């Protein structure tokens, strides 16, 4: 069986630290033997005690330190224990790290990644379950990525650092214990490949044909595949799933052809409603494919609500597979 996502991330960090003596890793409680709240950083501080540092509780400060390392020609990865707390680093991200790439009148490399364990479905409650991606869309100089079971994290993290632009990497917490996909095979029905080295395309039979395209960030990839399967088996709807690793800037060129062919697009996210990544994608698609879509782009997301702690309540807020299923069906059947 393929490795777990958390292992893939851990191995990616091992490899990157081994390859690059300039790389630092900072975050709360990430040193051994604890190895981070989600165990992503296990074994790293033992091998590189100088460059893998457990920090005080200082999310803003840590991202600032990482910015300083980047400025001094080093590279840095920061782990924010729960992505909800990246709010505390908003200034360092918006006003220092991303601004510094351009505001001095010339390109300044700021190789810096902020890793953000994200999302709900674990009963951690309103301040430990959010999907804050949308708040960072459209910050000049800042890239957004999301971990997915289709994208090797060494490639993703290495690529992010190589751009010289600061970036946020969102990591769905439920995904950690899931498995990576490998060798182009999802299951006995579905296959996948990577477009432009970034967008994972999951299809049945013919990658060039589908009734509807479903675009999701990596955190929803497993859920989207499950929905596509159900749609095929129960409703005879062929749904192609696209999972970009890079959320921002939008990878429109890789997404548009499939949407153009199907004429239908559903975008699903775990984010609460409003100002979503999906709305931005929808606008790009509506503009680029004006007059050729069979239906308006359909957005599926969580409710306009805090995320409650109790599982039975959390479900009433967070996007469910049935919501995505229903949306695709409605878009295809025109309900």
């Amino acid at each position, binding site marked *: 069986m393929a490795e777990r996502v958390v292992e893939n991330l851990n191995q990616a960090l091992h490899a990157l630290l081994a390859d690059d003596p300039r790389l630092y890793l900072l975050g*709360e*409680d990430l*040193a051994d*033997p*604890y190895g981070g*709240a989600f165990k992503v950083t296990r074994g790293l501080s033992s091998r590189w005690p100088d460059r893998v540092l*457990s*920090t*005080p*509780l*200082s999310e*803003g*400060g840590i991202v600032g330190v990482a910015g300083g390392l980047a400025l001094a020609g080093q590279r840095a990865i920061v782990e924010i224990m729960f992505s*909800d*707390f990246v709010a*505390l680093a908003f200034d360092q991200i918006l006003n220092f790290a991303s601004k510094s790439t351009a505001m001095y009148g010339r390109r300044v490399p700021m190789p810096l990644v902020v890793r953000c364990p994200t999302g709900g479905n*674990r*009963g*951690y*409650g*309103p*301040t*430990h379950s959010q999907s804050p991606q949308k708040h960072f869309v459209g910050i000049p100089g800042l890239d957004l990525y999301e971990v997915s079971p289709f994208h090797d994290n060494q490639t993703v993290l290495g690529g992010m650092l190589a751009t010289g632009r600061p970036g946020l990497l969102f990591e769905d917490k439920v995904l950690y214990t899931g498995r990576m996909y490998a060798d182009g095979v999802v299951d006995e029905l579905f296959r996948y490949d990577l477009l432009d080295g970034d967008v994972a395309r999951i299809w049945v039979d013919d990658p060039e044909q589908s009734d509807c395209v479903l675009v999701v960030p990596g955190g929803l990839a497993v859920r989207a595949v499950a929905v596509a399967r159900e749609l095929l088996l129960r409703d005879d709807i062929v749904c192609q799933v696209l999972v970009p690793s890079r959320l921002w800037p939008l990878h429109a060129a890789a997404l548009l052809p499939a949407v153009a062919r199907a004429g239908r697009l559903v975008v699903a996210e775990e984010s609460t409603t409003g100002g979503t990544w999906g709305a931005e994608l929808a606008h790009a698609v509506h503009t680029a494919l004006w007059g050729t879509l069979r239906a308006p782009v359909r957005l599926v997301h969580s409710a306009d*609500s*805090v995320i*409650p*702690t*109790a*599982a*039975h*309540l959390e479900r*009433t807020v967070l996007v469910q597979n049935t919501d995505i299923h229903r949306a695709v069906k409605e878009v295809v059947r025109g309900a």
Partner: protein
Amino acid sequence: MTAAVTGARPDVPTRLAADDLDLLLLIRHFELALLDMFGRGELHGTTHTCLGQEYVPVALRPLLTDGDHVFSNHRGHGHYLARFADPHGLLAEVMGRQGAVCHGVGGSQHILRDRYLSTGVQGESVPVAAGVALHLNRAEPGHLALVHLGDGTWGEGAVYEGLNMAALWGLPLLLVVEHNGIAQSTPTDAQLAGSIEGRARAFGVDHTLVTATDTALVRAALAPVLRRVREESRPAVVELRTHRVGPHSKGDDSRTPEEIAYAKAHDWYARYAEAYPEQFAAHDERQRAYLAEVVREVAGRPASVWEEADRG
């Protein structure tokens, strides 16, 4: 000014009145019951127990009035139970059952009831409590806002922003620091430079160190501090050297066996049991049984309901 009350290991703990002992044991058994349920996979999410630190809110209890605001944090079950003696409401909250104090929306870390509030982002409450204290100072002099926070939480800049304003404006804000020597997995000396005493003094704020874990001694040390905060309307910091006997949350304790043994050796629970075996046994048994009954009763309740009208 720094006052220090020592007494980390008095030979004999002070004998407690029944209500204090009951409350201590209520909290202890509440926390043990939670860990037990988590261990059996009966609970969802996470929780942070205050095992070893129960005496802090018990010592504070008679020093607070209903008009005071209490801000709690992730490790807040003891704070809640000392204020409301409501294990049913709290357990229902953790379990998402009917009667939950916040309908199961907040869960273990996010609780609001009357003038008691907890939330899950460390440090955020200090400026908030300063705001409450600003109001109290003007409208209800003599009342105070108390914030429970850990040693690790002094890493957050928000603490200093709040303390600065409280000191500048002469606000009745009391920071009760439960300094248990660790933040999640990180020992204090790896996350806090200098001292908490120094950090209070830096803002011209009084600091009191309490190393006792004996409820009566702690209470005696705290009483004059609270009185000063109320009467003189200025902030104060109390630092309690305490011991986290359990894991950080459900089962994540990466301390060495020696470190865990050290914390256990300072647990008030065993020492009180040893000093007053008969009184202890009776109360302990009563609270254990009571909690078992609470668990049984609450576990039997239907799921909590969150009405549309309550959704903000």
